């Protein structure tokens, strides 16, 4: 077991739990944040930005669901409804889910997990955050300059002819794409070149494998979105006739380009969440992860397969039948690595000592929701059923189960799991769990009825519907309210903990990976010396220590912690 021990102090090997000077307060003033090169501070800024965007997108969602309480027009006509769902989709996709786990949580945790002092390119890291900000600013500008009503997919030829702010939004997407590319590039290089002594590829925590697979997709798929967006901008501005059938262009080419990015992007959203769940399940079950190599390989397999299935978005767009069959077949095969992960998580929990901490509750919610989301994907991958289900609420429910129910719940799990490390404070477990229950129930109440609506033929993207659908719609809207309130409760609980929470020990949950070895919150350089890395899932290497309320390396348990804890405090 690798412990950060200080050989120069013979008195004790007991790890420092807390330092008065940490990355959060080592320097002050807005400049120390806005020009920081510290990956943790950049991650915090991402987290704040993502949270704001999440609530903005969430407000749009709640407004949409409110309009759908009745088939009659309540307060939104078709045009404003179109703009609202477009912005909801675009903001949630590009500003929340894609940067959520990798850019926010990954930035904070990845270098610490590697025992490194920072990511490989700290300046590029800050640059990618600013690109994210600029991209977000373009989105806000698009809202101000007449909205956007193309759907987040920008399908041609409508996106060429509509008179909403398509170009502004596309610039935003273009810039956000580069932000994502640079984050991914940074992570790949960091994982390749900055692993500590002893950490071979197969001793990396699975979260790092997931981030690595994610980053591969980010750098290989996002440039295609960039050039597609650019071509669409040029098409709109100068009518060059690439995608415009009136000028001899091919609108389906746009769909190919778009989904070549955007299907892999779905895995940019889900893979990091899967990595989070691998960590959370193992740590909170106090058990070595089951099938480590299979989980690691399945992340890479999902990343590779993710590039070969984009055509399943276009079964009814007029592609050839042979191609459709091939895409359908490959799409089915993606379920294999996904299922491998789910089975391994379940096997990890088997005979573990499971503690229903908030993070674990979110982890369990993830497994439940992801199973439904993944399995309903097979209905859509089947050519015959897809003809019936295409563009119905079934699709909406399916991708919300995967993108919201899985990716975002994974993000919530990550935030709760690493919150003591990030903020140095323990949050209130009771309210955390209540919020988790609310999110879980609210989510299922919102989207399960939509599966039923979809199979009965309710088409997506309409502000009105046949009266017989009303009961299910009301159910769905109630779920959305519950979901919104629970999310607010979750954020409230976390913010409350910053001010009134108990001070967190270095290792509150008993994790064995490196990030739990530095104090909470970490000092600005994380580790003074590169730590030695062992197996990140040998939970027996740490034991609970009553006095500090957290876990310490087993070999230190008997040490004179009194003086050490005091020394930790005395420095302050």
């Amino acid at each position, binding site marked *: 077991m690798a412990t950060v021990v200080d050989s120069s102090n013979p008195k004790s090997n007991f790890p420092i739990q807390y*330092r008065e000077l940490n990355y959060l307060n080592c320097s002050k003033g807005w400049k120390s944040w806005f020009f920081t090169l510290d990956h943790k501070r950049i991650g915090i800024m991402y987290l704040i930005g993502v949270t704001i965007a999440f609530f903005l997108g969430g407000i749009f969602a709640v407004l949409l669901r409110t309009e759908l309480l009745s088939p009659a027009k309540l307060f939104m006509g078709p045009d404003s409804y179109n703009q609202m769902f477009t912005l909801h989709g675009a903001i949630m996709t590009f500003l929340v889910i894609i940067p959520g786990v990798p850019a926010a949580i990954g930035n904070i945790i990845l270098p610490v997990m590697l025992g490194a002092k920072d990511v490989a390119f*700290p300046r590029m890291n800050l640059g990618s955050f600013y690109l994210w900000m600029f991209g977000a600013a373009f989105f806000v500008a698009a809202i101000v300059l007449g909205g956007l009503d193309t759907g987040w997919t920008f399908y041609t030829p409508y996106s060429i002819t509509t008179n909403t702010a398509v170009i502004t939004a596309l610039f935003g997407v273009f810039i956000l794409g580069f932000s994502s590319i640079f984050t991914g590039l940074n992570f790949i290089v960091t994982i390749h070149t900055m692993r500590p002594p002893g950490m071979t590829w197969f001793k990396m925590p699975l979260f790092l494998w997931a981030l690595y697979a994610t980053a591969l997709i980010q750098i290989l798929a996002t440039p295609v979105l960039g050039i597609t967006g650019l071509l669409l901008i040029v098409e709109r501005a100068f009518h*060059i006739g690439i995608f415009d059938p009136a000028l001899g262009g091919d609108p389906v080419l746009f769909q190919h380009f778009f989904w070549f990015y955007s299907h892999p992007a779905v895995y940019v959203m889900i893979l990091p969440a899967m990595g989070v769940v691998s960590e959370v399940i193992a740590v909170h079950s106090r058990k070595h992860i089951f099938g480590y190599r299979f989980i690691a390989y399945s992340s890479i397999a999902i990343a590779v397969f993710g590039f070969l299935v984009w055509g399943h978005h276009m079964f009814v767009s007029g592609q050839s039948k042979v191609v459709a069959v091939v895409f359908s077949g490959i799409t089915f095969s993606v379920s294999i690595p996904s299922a491998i992960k789910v089975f391994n998580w379940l096997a990890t929990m088997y005979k573990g000592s499971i503690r229903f901490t908030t993070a674990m509750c979110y982890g369990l919610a993830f497994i439940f929701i992801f199973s439904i989301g993944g399995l309903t994907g097979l209905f859509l991958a089947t050519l015959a059923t897809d003809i019936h289900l295409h563009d119905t609420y079934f699709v909406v429910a399916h991708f919300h189960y995967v993108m919201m129910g899985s990716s975002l719940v994974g993000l919530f799990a990550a935030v709760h799991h690493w919150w003591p490390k990030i903020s140095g404070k323990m949050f209130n477990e009771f309210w955390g769990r209540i919020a988790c229950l609310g999110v879980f129930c609210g989510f299922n109440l919102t989207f399960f009825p939509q599966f039923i609506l979809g199979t009965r033929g309710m088409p997506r993207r309409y502000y009105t519907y046949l009266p017989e659908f009303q009961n299910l719609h009301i159910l769905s809207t109630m779920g959305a309210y519950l979901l919104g309130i629970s999310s607010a409760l979750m954020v409230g609980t976390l913010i409350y903990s910053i001010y009134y929470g108990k001070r967190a020990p270095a290792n509150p949950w008993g994790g064995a990976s490196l990030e739990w070895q530095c104090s909470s919150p970490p000092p600005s350089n994380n580790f003074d010396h590169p730590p030695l890395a062992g197996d990140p899932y040998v939970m027996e290497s740490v034991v609970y220590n009553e006095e500090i309320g957290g876990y310490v390396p087993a070999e230190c348990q008997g040490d004179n912690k009194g003086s050490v804890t005091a020394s930790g405090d005395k420095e302050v």
Partner: protein
Amino acid sequence: MNTAATTTTDENADGHDHEHHDPRLAHHFDSHQQQFDTGKLGIWLFLVTEVLFFSGLFGFYAVYRSLHPEVFLYASQFLDTTLGAANTVVLLFSSLTMAWGVRCAQLGNTRGLLICLVTTLACAAIFLGVKSFEYTEKAHHGLLPGNMYHSPEDHGHAAEAAVPVAAGGADAAADHATADHADADHAAADHAAVPAVHQDDELFEKTKHTLSYMNSFLWAVIVLSGIAFGVLMKNPNKKTLATVAGCFLISAIGMQVGAFASVGYHQFGHAAAPTDQDIAMAETAPAEYAKQKEKVPEPLLARTFFSVYFCMTGVHAIHIIGGMIAISWLIVRTVHGAFTTYYFGAVDFIGLYWHLVDLIWIYLFPLLYLIN
């Protein structure tokens, strides 16, 4: 760790310098080797994203060429192979000087590195100069993407039956202005029914006219940056500014050289006047003459070719400009003596980027210019 805790204040004051003091080694790396490997992997990954970025354009090309081969066959004849080939040579030469510069940096030969970088920058500027001539000329012939396109048939070329003269396109910046010019051209052509040869001359004059704006601008840059360079050069505290001015000077001169060379080539070097034999034949047997000089009829979607052309070469030109900025930054750092035998990563990485930009041109040139 306890020791570290006691010295936290120091650490935050000046980073973690208890292990090394080399300012060339970033604080989070253990060794120069690690720093170099990191950068190398980073730039290769970045080049992968660049290739994928261009792959969208190549995909666009592949789809349309397979759907409408006749468009590409017809329209590519409007591109001037000689100018394209000249640009290819210039870029290849700049790749050589770049690679040479990396070698110089590795050997610690700062003077050689500086010469190589300056030459590379100048070559890049010449490339852009030639490209701007091509773009401007294309715009004046109405050979623009999408619905800005005006058929060259309207210019009376068809009657002349001569192989259409080299034509260029429009710079992204010049798009609006030139589209208007093109309209004016048509009006003139329809109205006056000038013989095609004159028409062609007229277009060339217009091209030169538009280029003269760029010309004046570049002269202004040359004069100003020349003065700035001369004044600042003597002041050892203004090394950076002087070098930046020098880079501007080199770029502007390079562009002038490229543009003037293209104009000169167009004026004297090509599109030979019809020979006596041709004239005799046209007079005695017009039908046979026309048949001999038979040209491909203009396909419906000829404009698509110019969409492809401008998108691909335009994005490539933007990358050239990006490379010029990066090389200028290298020149500034070289002047400050930043690079040594164990710290030359930046030169190597930007060199790799430059080779990729060249490589993309090596693909663009045959795909666009050499279709016939």
